[in-house]
């Protein structure tokens, strides 16, 4: 057990160090969501005047978007790095060691989650600095970070699965528009009940990302909402499980090739 945990820790630490050595992989995920948060929270402030809008602070409403987008960036980094390991033969060499596949996957996921945590802390500080007030208080901030981490794990698992499935960093990067599409077609800009276009509201309702965003958002503007939190944690957790199961299957194929 201790040995397995040690393996996970080593792989996770390697992943963290490798990300840290690539400034572009750290700076872009930190700055881009903040930039969009600043621009959209000002540019869309007028939306708070729509009757029924749940808060008079658009920055409070929009803050979860930064966490979701940051998690997507972390997933892309984790996926690209793993694909590079496949491309350079590092995974083949690992296959010759006693390291278990689950340890490799958990370690890679741990690296992605560490990046997500760092980003989440930065976004949180900026959000609080911009005057975001949590209706759930300090305990809500802790739960918010936990949910953000779970969501980060979900995106990270998807990135790992894509990397193992394709074995190509370019292929991982080319999935970005598709994954970003899920973020765009969600309730990120307006609550679902205020989305006017029927097709968009339906798409947002079917889109799991909406529930991740709404789970985070509920802690800021609603207070303790068990349903929103249950859906947020549940969908993110299920995504982690499902994507990691798929990744384990792909890893078995990758190992078999060696």
């Amino acid at each position, binding site marked *: 057990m201790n040995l397995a945990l040690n393996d996970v820790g080593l792989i996770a630490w390697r992943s963290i160090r490798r990300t840290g050595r690539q400034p572009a992989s750290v700076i872009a995920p930190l700055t881009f969501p903040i930039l969009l948060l600043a621009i959209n929270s000002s540019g869309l402030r007028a939306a708070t005047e729509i009757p029924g809008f749940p808060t008079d602070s658009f920055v409070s409403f929009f803050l979860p978007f930064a966490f979701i987008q940051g998690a997507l960036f972390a997933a892309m980094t984790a996926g690209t790095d793993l694909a590079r390991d496949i491309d350079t033969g590092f995974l083949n060499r690992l296959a010759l060691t006693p390291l278990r596949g689950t340890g490799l996957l958990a370690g890679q996921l741990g690296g992605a989650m560490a990046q997500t945590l760092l980003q989440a802390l930065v976004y949180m500080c900026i959000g609080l600095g911009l005057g975001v007030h949590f209706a759930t208080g300090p305990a809500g901030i802790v739960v918010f970070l936990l949910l953000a981490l779970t969501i980060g794990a979900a995106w990270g698992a998807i990135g790992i699965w894509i990397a193992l499935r394709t074995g190509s960093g370019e292929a991982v990067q080319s999935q970005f528009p598709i994954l*970003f599409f899920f973020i765009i077609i969600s309730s990120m800009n307006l609550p679902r009940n205020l989305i006017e276009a029927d097709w968009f509201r339906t798409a947002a309702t079917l889109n799991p990302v909406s529930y991740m965003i709404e789970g985070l958002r509920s802690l800021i503007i609603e207070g303790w909402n068990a349903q929103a939190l249950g859906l947020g944690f549940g969908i993110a957790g299920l995504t982690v499980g499902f994507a990691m199961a798929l990744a384990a299957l792909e890893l078995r194929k990758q190992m078999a090739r060696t």
Partner: protein
Amino acid sequence: MSRGNSMTVALALARRQMTILLKNPSLFLPPMLFPLMNFMAFAGGLSRLRHVPGFNFPSGYTSFVFVFVLLQSAAFGGVFTGFGIARDFERGFARRLLIASKHRSGIVWGYALASLFRWSTVAVLLTVVGLIAHMQIGGNGIDLFGLYTLAIIVNLTGLLWACGVAMRFRSVQAGPLMQTPIFILLFLSPVYVPLTLLEGWIHGIARLNPITYILTSGRGFISGEPIDVALGFAIALALCGALAVWALRGLRRAEQIV
């Protein structure tokens, strides 16, 4: 390639770029999908903003955001072509091109032609999707000619900016430098609501942002109530002229490495 005049060089290069694009959907599709995704997200997800007091754009919200997305796709069409220029330098093709061309300014115009062809397909697709989405067009044929001419100038401007960067850095790693300033300039304009509805710091910046007046002019065309036409075109042409100098100077720098 024969050592012909600038036009020969430009046409041959444009043809090559188009062939590459057609043979590599992964290079062609993302720049096409991004504007469509933005259009869907803005027109579908934010259409209720038309009910915000003070929003009085006569042709409706779909047309309002269509103009932004059209201009955004034009600018980014140029930027994505800039990625191709950088890639050509990394792979050594641009170096051979510089040696083979007698009239090297044709290289810049060749990439510009390729950028225009590339964006034209996006513009057609975007317009068709806009019409399917019941976009109201209040302007007549002359107004629409004005709108698309403005977009062509923006496309050329985006290409010239990215070309200047690519010629100086000669690496795809300069990609963020090509797209980030354009992204910021575009999003610091009245994207979601008219200038009069923006508040705070973003209102001040949008007022000083030259893109605001190009956007206002384009929106005037589509609504059939032209506004700031001379100002919009003057700004677009001035930016284009200045960036032509920037790109040609970049070409001179690149020549020094041959």
